């Protein structure tokens, strides 16, 4: 019998429907892989019983002919999504022991589509990080290894999701992307991930980081699987004031790798001096693959690209400092109450003990740039530059339908390598942050391996609401890249 954990979401769905295996068999196979992969530290909480309950419901549904879109498919849930009755921490001590009394809209949609939950996935604390080293529950380790045997980062912040999918602990998972937190980890681990247009997926019940940027998305091994998952995550939600009141397209049915008539732009600002030559070479291959699929290639310019990262590192911390004010030790989460302390001392002691260093750093930056006397110079200026960055994309999209870029400036780096220098870590998101600032749909997919045998990703960015275009161009790349490499099992 085939190893069920090597199947894609589409293969599990179809094989289960056709009676080749039961949902229970699938779920047990993934739960066994999870139990044997503690070294990767991809999960904060494992929920094999919840997964089995969903599998048994799927088996019963098949018997009665009432299958749902994701019946039989178990998935991983990033620990940023509130799950009723299951601890949700955002990988922070300050939320340790928090058991939500409600379900996030996105996770509720997935469960009602028939999916089962294998567990809550580790991540960077409050989604702040690009390497999964800021989690209060320990680093996530990538299944890929450096040539010298060093442990590598799975990327971040959705590093538990990327590591688990690459290691065959789950066929797909949710992620969230504020400045690249789906795309960069996907790139580092040789999988695919899509961040839809801002507003496609409800933010209700997702622990907030930077509300004008946060967007849930899908992570899986194939473009088709991402389309399937995203279709069952997106949709209007009156409980999120920025949710888009639009029907959800049938992205899977709309998949086509025929790009005739499509124009793909190559932004010159994404090829800075000193761009890693292997990444530049993969980008060139991507151009050739898109031409082969029928697309016309055009050169475009996004002149404010160099300002995207500093803009992001004002706006995101500013919103975070405001959002994270809610962790006060009163309503939920940890409380630290020194002897004889008053209310103000309790707040300060609770937050000092509960937040990790990177979270504190960003709250302080955000507090500073929003403080009296500095607000206009930092925050208002950043919001204006953000307008210019979005305008760059609007103008580029008058000349092309999609953009092709690398996903990250490097392959996965070693755990510990950049931890000492926050700024060096921030620069990792240089190619993903601009699309986030403009709210655009963007996807990363594996293009090939570098000379050290590590995966490199390509990114497709689309117009607002054109997830279909993004998925289709990604599919054309996926068919031509023929990426089948996987990490050799050592864990």
């Amino acid at each position, binding site marked *: 019998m085939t190893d069920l954990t090597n199947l894609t979401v589409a293969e599990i769905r179809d094989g289960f429907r056709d009676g080749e295996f039961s949902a229970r068999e699938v779920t047990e196979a993934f739960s066994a892989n999870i139990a044997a992969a503690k070294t990767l530290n991809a999960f904060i909480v494992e929920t094999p019983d919840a997964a089995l309950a969903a599998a048994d419901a799927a088996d019963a549904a098949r018997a009665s002919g009432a299958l749902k879109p994701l019946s039989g498919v178990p998935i991983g849930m990033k620990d940023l999504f509130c799950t009723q009755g299951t601890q949700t921490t955002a990988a922070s001590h300050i939320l340790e022991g928090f058991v939500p009394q409600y379900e996030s809209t996105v996770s509720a949609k997935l469960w009602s589509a028939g999916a089962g939950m294998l567990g809550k996935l580790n991540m960077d604390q409050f989604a702040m990080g690009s390497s999964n080293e800021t989690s209060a529950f320990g680093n996530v380790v990538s299944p890929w290894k450096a040539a010298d045997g060093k442990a590598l980062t799975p990327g971040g912040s959705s590093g538990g999701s990327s590591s688990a999918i690459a290691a065959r602990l789950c066929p797909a998972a949710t992620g969230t992307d504020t400045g690249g937190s789906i795309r960069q980890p996907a790139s580092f681990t040789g999988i695919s991930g899509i961040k839809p247009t801002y507003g496609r997926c409800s933010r209700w019940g997702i622990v907030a980081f930077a509300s004008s940027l946060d967007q849930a998305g899908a992570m899986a091994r194939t473009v088709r699987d991402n389309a399937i998952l995203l279709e069952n995550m997106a949709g209007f939600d009156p409980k999120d004031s920025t949710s888009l009141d639009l029907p959800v397209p049938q992205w899977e049915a709309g998949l086509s790798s025929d790009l005739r008539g499509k124009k793909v732009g190559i932004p010159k600002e994404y090829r800075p001096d000193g761009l890693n030559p292997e990444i530049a070479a993969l980008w060139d291959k991507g151009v050739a693959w898109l031409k082969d699929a029928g697309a016309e290639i055009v050169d475009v310019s996004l002149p404010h690209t160099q300002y995207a990262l500093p803009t992001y590192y004002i706006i995101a911390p500013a919103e975070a400092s405001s959002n994270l004010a809610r962790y006060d030790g009163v309503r939920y989460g940890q409380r630290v109450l020194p002897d004889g302390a008053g209310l103000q001392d309790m707040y300060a002691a609770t937050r000092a003990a509960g937040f990790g260093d990177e979270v504190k750093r960003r709250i*302080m930056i955000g507090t500073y740039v929003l403080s009296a006397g500095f607000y206009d110079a930092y925050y208002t200026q950043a919001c204006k530059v953000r307008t210019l960055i979005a305008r760059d994309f609007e103008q580029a999209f008058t000349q092309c339908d999609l953009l092709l870029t690398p996903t990250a400036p490097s392959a996965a780096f070693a755990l510990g390598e950049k931890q000492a220098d926050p700024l060096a870590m921030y620069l990792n998101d240089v190619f993903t942050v601009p699309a986030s600032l403009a709210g655009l749909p963007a996807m990363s997919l594996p293009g090939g391996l570098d000379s050290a045998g590590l995966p490199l990703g390509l990114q497709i960015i689309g117009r607002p609401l054109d997830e279909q275009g993004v998925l289709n161009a990604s599919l054309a790349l996926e068919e031509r890249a023929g990426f089948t490499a996987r990490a050799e099992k050592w864990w």
Partner: protein
Amino acid sequence: MSIDRDTVKKVAGLARIAVTDDEAQALVPELNNILGWVEQLGEVDVSGVEPMTAVIPNHLRLRDDVVTDGNVRDRVLANAPQAEHGFFAVPKVIE
């Protein structure tokens, strides 16, 4: 502009995060590095540019002013570090 230890302590106070003098001192170069880097935004000409308020054009919806949720006190209090008599409990605020 660069910030000093006293500014760090003031910001930490505003953010309600307790820091020791040593911690504040350690944060001085870290925060200055980041602030020095983001200050490059000052060179961008933004004359006539409006600050972005909505990344995807969207209108704010209104709903009828009626109760849509409620009567869930115990669930609201379920995760409180200290709940007493159906309320959140905190240290004494007024002497």
